[in-house]
């Protein structure tokens, strides 16, 4: 269930759902927010929990926005001034709706519905905070894997269709597990060293690359 951006109201601090194991991971002050094409809102405080990102305005502590990590499909550090004038953490938000190619020309003047906002930028007043902000987003994203990850994995196996019929014959013992001239079978010759040499199993393709040891004087031995 994708929820996108939600407007929230609370008394000064966000209320966490501790019953479901939600806990605060980091609080970062001095963060501005830009939702989609809406104007930049500042200043504010970012509350990052293991489930969601909450931004509360410093001007009006009861107003803010929240996005579940499950709704954040991408997050990245943006330092390219052509993409956005200020260094920021850029996120794409899964709104759960297919992108409509047609945009109503009148809709530009209509305030955007928050649930349709597909991008969010978080702009720290101190750009050096970006890397730590990105790191905590990475950590929380790992804690929130897609619930349907692995769906359809049963189709991931490749096997030959004509082998399906072999199963019954094999169970009845018609297929020998010891083909007479199969490579690798000792066939009575238990000199494994020789067998391995014949198979070139000890050839260089299986050797680990030897690490060069530095003597400290710039030479290797």
């Amino acid at each position, binding site marked *: 269930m994708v929820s996108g951006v939600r407007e929230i109201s609370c008394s000064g601090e966000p209320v966490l759902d501790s019953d479901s194991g939600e806990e605060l991971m980091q609080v970062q002050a001095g963060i501005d927010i830009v939702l989609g094409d809406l104007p930049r809102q500042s200043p504010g405080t970012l509350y990052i929990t293991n489930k969601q990102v909450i931004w509360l305005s410093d001007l009006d502590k009861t107003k803010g926005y929240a996005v579940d990590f499950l709704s954040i499909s991408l997050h990245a550090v943006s330092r390219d001034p052509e993409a956005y004038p200020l260094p920021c953490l850029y996120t794409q938000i899964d709104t759960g709706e297919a992108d409509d190619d047609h945009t109503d020309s009148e809709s530009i003047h209509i305030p955007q519905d928050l649930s349709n906002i597909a991008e969010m930028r978080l702009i720290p007043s101190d750009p050096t905070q970006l890397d730590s902000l990105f790191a905590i987003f990475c950590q929380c994203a790992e804690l929130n894997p897609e619930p349907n990850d692995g769906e*359809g*994995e049963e*189709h*991931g*196996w*490749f*096997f*030959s269709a004509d*082998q399906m019929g072999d199963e019954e014959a094999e169970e009845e013992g018609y297929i020998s*597990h*010891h*083909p007479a001239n*199969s*490579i*690798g*079978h*000792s066939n009575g010759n238990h000199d*494994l*060293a020789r*067998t*391995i040499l014949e*198979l*070139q*199993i*000890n050839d260089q*393709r*299986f050797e680990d690359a030897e690490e060069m040891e530095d003597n400290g004087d710039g030479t290797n031995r």
Partner: protein
Amino acid sequence: MEEDNEEEEFNTEPLFVLMMSVKNNTQVLINCQNNKKLLGRVRAFDRNCNMVLENVREIWTEPVNKDRFISKMFLRGDSVTIVLRNPK
């Protein structure tokens, strides 16, 4: 449609080696992270190199040269380091 893409993916390197072993019932030589070698035929595989192998000769040289035969086994892909096709 998705299965077609997957088949196309398996028809290109590096999974092509496994694909050919499945289709032609040829042997592959697999080096594992524990430095053991597996020589056998691939019955099935997925994109993670998880494999169902048949008629496998497991060979190791430490501390002494030894081997054993395994008629059917599942090999988890994260232990695979090298796959050689048709070792001669």
